[in-house]
């Protein structure tokens, strides 16, 4: 049995969060540069130029891309043949939380989390807690995907329990309508993650994970690939454009993931991320 020290998990968490906060993915950058070639109107071009310049500054100065450094979401897969051994901070979950705190202090991130959501709404002051989604899988490794999530875009996300009769068209209409209603609030050009199927919470989870798929990658199922293309074309015909200044680029990609669901249901979740599309992945 392979031993994974809690401190290794802490360090991986810290490193991945800071990587996501400071650096844009090469796939997203390429998509933004392609968008700049397409856009002709001055406001849209200005927005894209500022977004690209901002990314250059953030990466060079190792400063956060956005002041909303987000609530930290960590997807973790732990191999069943590995055993986590506690260190000073504690075990598996404590190590992730400690890694998130270390990133907060070391990276000068913003404290963006409140404790009670309804009443006091008191800031927790160290951006804790991180949201952890853990699974046990085969093998003896630990794989982590962190996604610092800003709420400009998170607030514009939506889920609907559609009836099976809604079909492909109902799903596409809901996706496009969610982006339309979001307008310029989620910091377009966005990436639209979609979950179809599963249960209520699974649908939302696969939508969130779908946002991290490589921009420019093609869905392996041609039917879903065609649906993604259609939704992206419809979304970009809305005219919202970069920063909401009008243009052809409201979203860089629509990524759909799907899961088996109940005979009575067809849930569709739409999770929107901004043009920074912050995420980073690593292994132990």
């Amino acid at each position, binding site marked *: 049995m392979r031993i994974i020290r809690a401190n290794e998990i802490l360090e991986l968490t810290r490193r991945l969060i800071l990587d996501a906060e400071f650096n844009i993915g090469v796939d997203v950058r390429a998509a933004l540069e392609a968008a700049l070639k397409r856009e002709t109107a001055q406001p849209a071009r200005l927005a894209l130029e500022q977004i690209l310049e901002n990314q250059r500054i953030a990466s060079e100065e190792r400063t956060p*891309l*956005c*002041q909303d450094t987000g609530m930290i979401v960590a997807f973790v897969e732990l191999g069943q043949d590995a055993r986590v051994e506690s260190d000073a901070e504690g075990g598996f979950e404590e190590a992730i939380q400690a890694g998130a705190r270390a990133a907060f202090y070391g990276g000068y991130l913003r404290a*963006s989390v409140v404790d009670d959501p309804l009443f006091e709404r008191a800031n927790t002051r160290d951006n804790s807690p991180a949201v952890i989604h853990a699974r046990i899988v085969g093998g003896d490794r630990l794989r982590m995907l962190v996604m610092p999530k800003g709420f*400009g875009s998170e607030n514009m996300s939506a889920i609907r329990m559609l009836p099976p009769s809604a079909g492909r068209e109902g799903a596409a209409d809901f996706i496009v309508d969610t982006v339309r209603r979001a307008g310029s609030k989620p910091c377009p050009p966005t990436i639209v993650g979609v979950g179809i199927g599963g249960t209520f919470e699974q649908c939302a989870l696969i939508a969130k994970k779908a946002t991290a798929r490589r921009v420019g990658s093609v869905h392996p199922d041609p039917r879903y690939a065609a649906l993604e293309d259609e939704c992206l074309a419809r979304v970009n015909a809305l005219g919202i454009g970069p920063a*909401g*200044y009008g243009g052809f680029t409201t979203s860089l990609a629509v990524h759909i993931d799907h899961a088996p669901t109940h005979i009575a249901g067809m849930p569709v979740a739409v999770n929107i991320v901004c043009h920074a599309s912050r995420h980073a992945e690593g292994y132990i």
Partner: protein
Amino acid sequence: MNAIDIALPLCAQTVAALNPGDIVRIGGPVYTARDAAHRRMAESLVRGEPLPFAIAGQTIYYAGPAPARPGQIIGPCGPTTSARMDAYTPQLIKAGLRGMIGKGERSDAVREAMREYGAVYFGVVGGAAALIARCVKRCEIVAYEDLGTEAIRRLELEGLIAIVLGK
């Protein structure tokens, strides 16, 4: 870049001359305020208490900066979604607020109040936080320090490129 230079605080004539879609270059003082600060200011108005800064003619920037590193004036400080402040904005405009900087659409009530009282709403690019931080030449907390990033700060801006989204 072909931008109209705007010196804050705004006067009525400056606002009157602006049109939606105009690209502007903003310099001068703004006050940051977002969700929690707006809630407190609205409560002050209800109780008939003074606001924490003289709002007449001033501009609010909807922003909550990330912490400054040692030697920095301010951390990344892009705009937050203006619409969350829509519930409070008409009463602030009525109290004298003349300019707003943020991102995203505003409500009908805010647009109506802007028309009635002659206020203007500027958009800056959401997420361009490290770039915008370079336009901040001074930063001091003026109220609600306990709110952390949501405290009201007075920023001295220089060369902030924005676009007129409404007036």
